[in-house]
């Protein structure tokens, strides 16, 4: 490696130390949230509430993985744009078939 690269690398090293601390924190948070979601499920809340709570916890856990393990919190605009587009179509895919045949006309 050239000296430029080596200099960049040692700046990096300090950076990495900070990141590692974040990874451990996130790991602990994920463990806690996992336990929480399992315990809440034992309460057998009414289905709509159970779904909302479980999905909320999942979204939090997923966001932690995405933002910190996948470094999305400091990613470039282009990646955000691609993901925003994907999210829009993902929502369409989940919602519209269900809405279109919500009355279950063809089932049973």
């Amino acid at each position: 490696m050239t000296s430029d690269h080596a200099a960049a690398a040692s700046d990096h090293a300090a950076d990495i130390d900070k990141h590692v601390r974040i990874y451990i924190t996130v790991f602990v948070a994920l463990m806690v949230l996992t336990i929480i979601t399992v315990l809440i499920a034992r309460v057998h809340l009414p289905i709509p509430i159970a779904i909302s709570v479980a999905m909320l916890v999942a979204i939090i856990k997923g966001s932690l993985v995405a933002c910190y393990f996948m470094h999305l919190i400091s990613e470039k605009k282009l990646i955000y744009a691609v993901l925003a587009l994907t999210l829009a179509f993902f929502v369409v895919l989940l919602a519209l078939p269900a809405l279109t045949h919500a009355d279950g006309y063809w089932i049973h």
Partner: protein
Amino acid sequence: MSEHAAVAGAKPHVAHEAHHEELGFWRKYVFSVDHKVIGIQYAVTGLLFLFFGFSLMMLMRWQLAYPGAALPLVGRILGESRMPGGTMLPEFYNELGAMHGTIMVFLGVVPLAVGGFGNFVLPLQIGAPDMAFPRLNMLSYWSFFLGGVTMLASFFVPGGAAQSGWTSYTPLSVYASSGQTWWLIGMVFLITSSLLGAVNFITTTIQLRAKGLTFMRFPFFVWAQFVTAFLLLLAFPPLEAAAVLQLMDRVAGTSFFLPTGLVVSGQALTNAGGGNTLLWQHLFWFLAHPEVYVLILPAMGIVAEIVANNTRKPLWGYRSMVYSLVFLGFMSFIVWAHHMFMTGMGTAMAAFFQTTTMIISIPSVVILTALIISLWGGSIRFNTPMLFALGFLPMFGIGGLTGLPLGLNVADIPLHDTYYVIGHFHYVVAPGTIFALFAGVYFWFPKATGRRMNETLGVIHFIGSFICMNVIFMPMFFLGMAGVSRRLYDGGAAYDFAQPVLHLNVISSWGAWMLALFQLPFIFNFFWSIWKGARTEENPWQATTLEWAAPSPPPHGNFVQVPQAYRGPYEYSVPGAAKDFVPQYEA
């Protein structure tokens, strides 16, 4: 100027392939990672499938014109299980129908339009040495090839190939013979190929464009391929999931698509039931609607290049065309249920999909209008590519306009699943897209081979094809409006109401067989010109875009000197310039 200098002091990245030694035959022509070789592989394979899919239709057209009549010669070759005594069995007709659609869309048009033209032209047009991921590119081609082989092999399994329409609607397809399983597996290979290709195209377009080539200086062709890649990337996966689900229903006894209480051939199902047969339709059309834009967008891109070049004028409304293209791509994801108006959806959702469908016609009209206005005041050169490009315009217009009643919930009721639909989409794809693809072949043939195709044969090809396409498909609107359903193996002959219009089937059939004859000049021209065509220089069309800076044919790495873009893509007839065109790559 080296593009590796982006990071100061960084070591130039060492590529893995050995470019310095001569590659052997297999690495150079078969398992090549060069986008030009891969593009030609896609194009040739795609053209072969196109003609094969057309041949299936020519067989069908005999049955439609003369239902129940024995087909001389060919009928006997196909054997007793399919054509006993030379007469077509309905099951065989269904096989031909399902495979004609599948092959034309997934093995013919898309591989040629995207795999062929996209691969060959895109890196050259943005001034890149190759695609961002050359090995992934090769993998994409071979995945497509495997998919094609699987589809062809399915003709030879017991029960024959898939025969539940190219749409494979459940529950019929779940109970179809084993050819359907092969269809599903083939689709998985084809979808994988497209997904990997899309990743490559998008990354390449963003990252490997030449210095000075901003997004709004892209040739329209590049924009078209770029948006198409996003459609492939995000719309195909749900069909892949659906294929897996149908495979599970067929092979693992699940009931994803099988409702409770289903009775098949008089026997009640023993499956668990509780499935939703419309689930298949939603997942299928979620892809298949964006898929039709995959079919048309590259064609618009090709036509735009050829129109600008042969009017010696910039494209009119380039910016509007680009915005329309992007808007069109986005909208294409939220119109799909207009294929499902007859499935019992409520009025709210029908209104939603009808509205989005009407809205999506606007950007199409903007693009078509801009292309037509681009002709005004131009010094038009009527060479073969331009003839096909000009032919595309009114044909796509007819296709698009006839789609409007289909997109309106109520107007769709009498037209759904009739020949009107077949007429509509064939106008868009056949004298639409395929004409654009022919135009592209004639246009970029000199770049790929260093030789020109013969003009006289090209004109014959065009005039004959143009007339025959209209002879085939125009009658279908009338057939459909009279109420004749699609996918009837006798073309409606069994129905009283169809009797007055049955003769239209004969007209369409003769048009189809004549169309086949008019492809012979093209096929001959294509191969003959590879060896004997008139030699040409780098830029025989006096065009402005970056691919014309490369030698014809371009070497490995494409450009002798890394090109740079100094201006927009269509600087034709610039006042005060020495020539009637100023190339993008000239300083």
